[in-house]
């Protein structure tokens, strides 16, 4: 990697705003999904903020990894070496619809918003790849899907250490050893107590 590559990457991420686009999508996604998990687990406001910042960082890393995987896959499929920063600049636009991920918080109807936004984002990513590599839609689809599959493969290989890392990050940011899913909250009353909701509140 020469100096011009790093300059170009810097320009794309911070001058052209690709990083900001992905960070905003990460923030919106964190508020739309992660915040519910945190509040159900009764995390304090400070730890909530720390966990949210961490989830945004992981989101950005995940996005960059996905774009890099597309870049590698398209190199294999098309035998064409397009500069990575150019691809980041184009595919980061696919994260614009995900700015609205916070709408997933809308009661009941919000549950359907996430799949819709992800679908919209995927379509934009396809057109971005097609534009950058100047190829047909099928070739762009092949490159994007191959990148996605390679990501899945990597995830499967590192799933155990990734789960341990996820648990460790959860524990240090929230101060809780276990993460309780809303469907598994111990919602019951204790007749030995003076507060009917105490049984559930003891999950702190």
């Amino acid at each position, binding site marked *: 990697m020469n100096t011009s590559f790093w300059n170009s990457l810097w320009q794309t991420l911070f001058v052209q705003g690709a990083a900001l686009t992905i960070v905003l999508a990460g923030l919106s996604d964190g508020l739309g999904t992660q915040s519910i998990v945190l509040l159900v687990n009764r995390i304090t406001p400070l730890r909530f903020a720390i966990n949210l910042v961490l989830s945004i960082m992981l989101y950005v890393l995940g996005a960059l990894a996905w774009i890099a995987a597309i870049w590698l896959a398209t190199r294999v499929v098309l035998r064409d070496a397009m500069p990575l920063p150019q691809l980041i600049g184009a595919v980061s636009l696919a994260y614009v619809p995900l700015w609205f991920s916070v*709408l997933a918080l809308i009661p009941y109807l919000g549950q359907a918003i996430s799949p819709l936004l992800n679908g919209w984002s995927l379509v934009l990513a396809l057109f971005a790849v097609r534009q950058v590599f100047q190829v047909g839609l099928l070739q762009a689809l092949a490159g994007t899907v191959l990148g996605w599959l390679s990501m899945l493969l990597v995830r499967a290989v590192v799933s155990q250490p990734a789960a341990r890392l996820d648990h460790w990050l959860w524990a240090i940011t929230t101060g809780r050893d276990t993460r309780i899913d809303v469907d598994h909250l111990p919602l019951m009353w204790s007749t030995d107590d003076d507060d009917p909701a105490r049984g559930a509140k003891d999950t702190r």
Partner: protein
Amino acid sequence: MIDLLRVLAGWLMAIAPYVFAILLGLILVFLLASIIIAIVVLFWWAGWTDHRVVRHALTGASAAPATRAVVAQQRIFMVYLSGIGHISSTYSTRYEDAFLAAIAAQVPDLIIVGDVFPFSVQNESMISERRLGWFWSWINAQRLRKGRLKFAGDLILIRNILYTAVSADRRYGPVYNYSVATLILNSLLHQGYRLGSGAPVTLLGYSGGGQIALATAGYLKTTLKAPVQVISLGGVVDAHPAIDRIDALYHLYGTKDRWERLGQCIFPARWPVAPWSRWNRAVAGGKITVRCLGPMAHEGRHSYMDDSAMLASGQSYMAHTATSIAGLVHQFAMEHEPIA
């Protein structure tokens, strides 16, 4: 004529951006309000807001296991959860007072528990809310005055519909429904229900209260260890997992009830094309009974609780609805009478 049309078209083109901006603003306000309502529930659960709820203890006489003598004196309990037009547990329309009295008159020893406001996790009336109490008080005053601003009363409906959506949402529902179930349980104990007595309980939910009645019934059934049935009157009801736990659900509707039809549309599990859904399986298995009461509307004149509108039989709409519900409550109590 053509000049007039041109002027009209020019005028429409001129105001179109403003109309669009107003519509967009209203949509944004609605989205923001719906998110805030869900977040408020979660903040309350997480302990980020103050807990001003007054709870009755489960300890003491009412929480003690029932003796045989007490069981023999057991009365019939029915919890009433109001519709989306209400602002507190104490406010009732002139229709509702007479309606509940008519049910009580037909079921001997019936205790109606009606002091739970189902659209609040703290049983807090809307006019008592710390930040928006003044606003809801003003809105309610406009609604009752029936002046030019009476349409503002629809904001109360929208707010309570959003709470109904929170109850139906699988992410917020467990927290919200458990909290309202706590209020119901406390009210039952306060009214003399004894844990362990096995006395059957009926939850009657009107409109959006029907959804919350069903969603809270599962928790009550687990704790009371007694028969629990739910009656949904024109309810906007989802196929909640509580269906598997309760003893019976009666869904009563009128042919002119548009809100009840909305429930059928927005909850896919109730669509006839999903025979494997929890709702449709329960209907096929006899646990859910869907019954038409007649040509009733949802609220106001010609509604389930209108005593001036008459059926062909000469019975008023309200009398017919009250008789139908009283029959279900009485029958359920007789079928599940605790053995002394």
